[in-house]
C-alpha cells in the first residue's frame, strides 16, 4: 500500500488507466493545485485592491454580505478568469476520469459482479424513484450523475467517481479518499469514549469511500450503507469486498428507508445534506431520529456553514452553488441546525456543530488552510453537525 498523497491506492475494481490517460488525469490535478495556490488567492487581492474600494466609493460603505460581494465580484476580470478556469478544470476532471472507464466499461461490470470475499451484501431496488432534486442537474457536473446506466450491471458512475474524487481533492483526502469518514470516526472516538456502536448506517454513501473507515474503526459493528443510485452501489459493494471490508449496501432513499425503528446506534452521512433539498433534508434528519436507538448518535460531515465565515470567504465557498451544479449548496450552508434537529425530534441541547481535524495527517503541511471553492478539504478540518437521541442505551 502506498501512503502518499501523490497517487491513489489501487484496489481490484479501480479502473487501470493507460499511460496517457493517467498523464491526463494527473495534469488535471496539477492544474487544480495551480489554481488553488496561484490563481485563487488573486480573488481576495482583486477584492481588497479594486472591487471593495470601488464599492465603497459608490455606496459609502463596505459590502456587508456575500450577496453584495457576489454582485460586484462577478464583474471582476480576475474572478471571471478564475471561474472560467475552475469550471474548465472540473469538466476536464470528469472527462479524464471517464476515459479508462469507457474503455473498460463491460469488463468492469463483469469484474464487479464477481468480486466478493468479505461477506458484505448488495440489495438493489429497481423500483426506487430517483428523487427530483437528484435528477434536476447532474450534481457536481458528473455527466449522467450517479444514476445513469448505459450497460447491464453498470458500475461506470462509481468507477468514474472514485477516480474523480481523488483528483478533485488533490489527494487531500488520502490515498483511499477516506478522510471524511476517518476524521468523523476519530472525532467520535475522542469525544465519546466508550461509545461502541453495534449497528452503523451511512446515508448517501456513493462508492462507500467514507463508509469503509467505520467498518475499520468498529470491526465488530454491522455496517450498512444506502444510496439512491444502483451503479454507485454495485461499485461500492465490489470496492468494499476487494478491500476486505464487510458492508451491507442497499438502494434506498435516506428520506425513508425500510430499516426498523431504533435499529442503529450511529447514523452518519458525508456531504449528503447539500445534495438534497429544503424538504428532503428535514425528512433525512427525521429518518435519522427514527432509526436511532435511545443514546444513539447522528453525525453529518459537511463543509462549514456560512455563519462562521467572513462574508468574502462565504462568497467564495458559495461558488459551487451556481457554477458546479450544486443548487442546494448555498441554502444548505445557511440552515439552522438546532431548529432542523429539534423539528426532527432531537433535543436541541444535544445538537453539536464542530470543526474536526483531518485524520489524514500527511497532507497537513501542504494544505492551503482555507475554505475556498474548488479546494475541497483544503481547510484541513471537517465540519461535523449532529445530535444525540435521548434516553438510556441498551433498552
Amino acid at each position, binding site marked *: 500500500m502506498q501512503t502518499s498523497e501523490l497517487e491513489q491506492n489501487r484496489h481490484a475494481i479501480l479502473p487501470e488507466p493507460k499511460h496517457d490517460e493517467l498523464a491526463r488525469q494527473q495534469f488535471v490535478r496539477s492544474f487544480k493545485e495551480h489554481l488553488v495556490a496561484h490563481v485563487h488567492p488573486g480573488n481576495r487581492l482583486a477584492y481588497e485592491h479594486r472591487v471593495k474600494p470601488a464599492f465603497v466609493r459608490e455606496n459609502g460603505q463596505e459590502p456587508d454580505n456575500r450577496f453584495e460581494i457576489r454582485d460586484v465580484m462577478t464583474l471582476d476580470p480576475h474572478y471571471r478568469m478564475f471561474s472560467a478556469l475552475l469550471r474548465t478544470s472540473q469538466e476536464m476532471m470528469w472527462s479524464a476520469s471517464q476515459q479508462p472507464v469507457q474503455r473498460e466499461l463491460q469488463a468492469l461490470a463483469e469484474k464487479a459482479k464477481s468480486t466478493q470475499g468479505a461477506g458484505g451484501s448488495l440489495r438493489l431496488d429497481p423500483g426506487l424513484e430517483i428523487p427530483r432534486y437528484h435528477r434536476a*442537474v447532474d450534481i457536481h457536473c458528473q455527466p449522467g450523475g450517479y444514476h445513469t446506466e448505459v450497460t447491464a450491471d453498470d458500475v461506470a458512475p462509481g468507477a468514474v467517481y472514485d477516480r474523480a474524487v481523488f483528483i478533485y481533492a488533490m489527494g487531500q483526502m488520502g490515498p483511499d479518499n477516506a478522510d471524511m469518514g476517518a476524521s468523523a470516526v476519530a472525532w467520535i472516538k475522542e469525544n465519546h469514549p466508550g461509545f461502541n456502536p453495534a449497528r452503523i448506517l451511512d446515508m448517501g454513501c456513493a462508492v462507500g469511500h467514507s463508509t469503509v473507515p467505520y467498518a475499520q474503526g468498529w470491526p465488530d459493528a454491522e455496517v450498512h450503507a444506502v444510496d439512491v443510485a444502483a451503479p454507485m452501489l454495485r461499485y461500492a459493494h465490489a470496492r468494499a469486498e476487494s478491500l476486505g471490508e464487510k458492508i451491507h449496501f442497499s438502494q434506498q432513499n435516506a428520506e425513508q428507508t425500510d430499516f426498523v425503528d431504533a435499529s442503529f446506534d450511529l447514523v452518519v452521512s458525508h456531504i449528503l445534506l447539500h445534495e438534497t433539498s429544503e424538504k428532503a433534508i428535514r425528512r433525512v434528519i427525521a429518518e435519522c431520529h427514527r432509526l436511532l436507538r435511545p443514546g444513539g448518535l447522528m453525525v453529518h460531515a459537511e463543509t462549514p456553514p456560512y455563519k462562521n465565515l467572513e462574508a468574502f470567504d462565504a462568497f467564495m465557498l458559495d461558488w459551487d452553488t451556481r457554477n458546479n451544479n450544486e443548487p442546494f449548496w448555498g441554502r444548505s450552508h445557511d440552515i439552522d441546525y438546532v431548529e432542523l434537529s429539534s423539528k426532527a425530534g432531537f433535543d436541541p441541547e444535544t445538537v453539536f456543530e464542530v470543526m474536526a481535524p483531518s485524520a489524514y495527517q500527511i497532507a497537513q503541511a501542504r494544505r492551503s488552510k482555507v475554505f475556498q471553492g474548488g479546494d475541497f478539504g483544503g481547510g484541513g478540518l471537517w465540519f461535523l453537525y449532529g445530535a444525540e437521541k435521548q434516553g438510556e442505551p441498551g433498552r
Partner: protein
Amino acid sequence: MTEQPRLKRKAKGERPYFFSDPSIDKLLAMLMGLAGEVSVLRDRLDTVERLAEQNKLFTRAEIENYQPDEEALKERAERRAVFLGEVTRIIEAELEGMQDEDDAPYSQALELVNRTES
C-alpha cells in the same frame, strides 16, 4: 458487431459562462485542453527517456549534453518557424489582408453578388 454503449459526456444543467463573450470561456477551455495534451506528451517523453536509460540505450545525461550539429540546428529552426506560423496564423492573416488591401468590408461582396442592375 454491436456498438459499445457510450457514457454521457455532458453534465445535465445549463453551463455558466463568466466572460461577457462566451467565446472567451470556450477559447480558454480549448487552451487548457491543449496545455493538458502538451503535458501528456511531455510525460510520455519522460517515460521514453527513463525506459531508454533503464534499458541502456542512452541516458538522460546524454540528452542534456547533446550538441546539435549545423544541420540539426537548421532543421529545428525551420520547424519552429513553421510551428509559430501555424499558431499565430490569425494575426498574420490580418496583416496580409492589410498589405494586399483584400480586406474590404464583406458587405461589398454581398452587395456585388446580390446586385440586380448592372
